[in-house]
């Protein structure tokens, strides 16, 4: 049952966006998110929407995959809209009982909804088109300059990729331990929430012990293969910018410039 969980939400297909350097995608996502909070007025949102639409079309990922991410934030979205709608001071449009809806309230609620939806869709495009592994590589390279102030960038990236590698293994192991305990009469399914959480404790203890044992084995195996941190290390798949990456950067710059201009004019 646990094995059905897929890692991340990578959508396997071949598109321009998939082939882009992960650094480009990371930077673009950040720029896009920032732009959402910088732009003012309808023109800005139309611009952001058009940009998003273009990227989604280029990525060849079906829109329903983007929508999946929306489910998880639906609750947050509703709350944000309600708060903005009822709690903004200004020109009253409708008023009933103790609640008032103002003109400004409607405007801000609308903005907030559009922002959140765009934000989630924008970051989904990145995670849907980049493998977790690639993403880690991109992060390591992007954060590289932080090494100067002694941030262990390589080590963090290595930890992330090892964690990714071991998630399926540990899931499988959890499944095995669960089955072994169910076979001996353990009950994980019934009872209220607290009871169910409590029944997880005998599951976690063996899982932790085995995880530590694995970590120890893996560390020995890595040392045996001459692993000694990030210094003097070469890359089998180094990240290299191609022409398409530079073009993507150009597009992003143009988008950012347009956003700023649009905000000024209107």
């Amino acid at each position, binding site marked *: 049952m646990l094995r059905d969980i897929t890692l991340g939400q990578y959508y396997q297909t071949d598109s321009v966006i998939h082939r882009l350097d992960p650094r480009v995608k990371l930077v673009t996502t950040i720029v896009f998110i920032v732009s959402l909070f910088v732009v003012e007025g309808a023109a800005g949102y139309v611009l952001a929407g058009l940009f998003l639409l273009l990227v989604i079309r280029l990525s060849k990922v079906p829109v329903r995959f983007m929508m999946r991410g929306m489910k998880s934030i639906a609750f947050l979205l509703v709350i944000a809209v309600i708060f903005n709608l009822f709690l903004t001071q200004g020109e009253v449009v409708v008023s009933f009982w103790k609640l008032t809806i103002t003109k400004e309230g409607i405007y801000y609620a609308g903005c907030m909804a559009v922002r959140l939806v765009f934000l989630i869709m924008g970051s989904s495009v990145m995670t849907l088109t980049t493998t977790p*592994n690639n993403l880690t590589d991109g992060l390591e390279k992007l954060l590289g300059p932080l090494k100067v102030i002694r941030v262990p960038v390589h080590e963090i990236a290595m930890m992330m990729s090892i964690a990714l590698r071991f998630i399926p293994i540990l899931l499988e192991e959890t499944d095995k331990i669960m089955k072994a305990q169910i076979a001996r009469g353990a009950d994980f399914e019934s009872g209220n929430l607290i009871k169910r959480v409590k029944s997880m404790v005998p599951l976690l203890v063996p899982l932790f012990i085995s995880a530590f044992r694995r970590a120890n084995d893996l560390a020995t195996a890595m040392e045996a293969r001459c692993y000694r941190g990030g210094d003097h290390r070469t890359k089998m798949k180094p990240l290299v910018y191609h022409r398409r990456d530079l073009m993507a950067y150009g597009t992003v710059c143009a988008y950012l410039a347009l956003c700023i201009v649009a905000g000024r004019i209107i």
Partner: protein
Amino acid sequence: MSIVETKDLVFEYIRRDEEGNVEGITRAVDNVSLSIRQGDFIAVLGHNGSGKSTLAKHINAILYPTEGTVWVNGMDTSDDEKLWDVRQSAGMVFQNPDNQIIGQVVEEDVGFGPENLGVPTKEIWERVEESLRAVGMYEFRKHSPNKLSGGQKQRVSIAGVIAMHPKCIVLDEPTAMLDPKGRKEVIRAARALNDVEEITVILITHYMEEIIYANRVFVMDKGRVAMEGTPREIFSQVERLKELRLDVPQVTLLAHELKKSGLQIPDGILTTQELLQALGL
């Protein structure tokens, strides 16, 4: 020239209680002196706790001798400056296939060792390809290791070691967690390495069937080398092996029992074919 040599090697595990006081000392390896020639296929045999894995970990400088010395390719493993050269010369494959694969894609895992050695990118790709071909896993290069069988994972691990161009590979019970089919795959890969690439193979095992391909066998017991010789010499001494609590392959045992009952059969029968011949069938 000997690729691995130990002289009066002693290793002691110190057991401590919670306050860090010494509770007891276990001598895992006790005065072992041996010498392994370049190109040999060596098997080290012994039941659990005989010290065979501890001995293996000394060859890769994961453990250091308490007393005595270990030389790998002429380098003293206790020499800190030579540490990485020692580990590059003597690769190691461990028992649990899941806990030694680092990459999320087969080819990336094989590339991990060369990456650590600072090999240029282009050469890494060449090494990865040639190593995966050597163990017959090239067509799986784009697969996730999680989807492979145990035997396939161990072959990937072996490829990961070959990619570092070692002089010698230590296989520490590589087949203990595998099914019979996986065991055969791994042993076949190890033999191919020895035959084709002329890499020295040191196979640590407790499966008797696996040692018949070795050209020299060390049997360990209580940290000491109890027996040494060719597989045939070892298997001629069925009674001694039983004393050391080791099983003998069925056919060897049968031959031994037949001989005891008075049939004219030579000692140390290793295969069914040989027994049939000896019986004149």
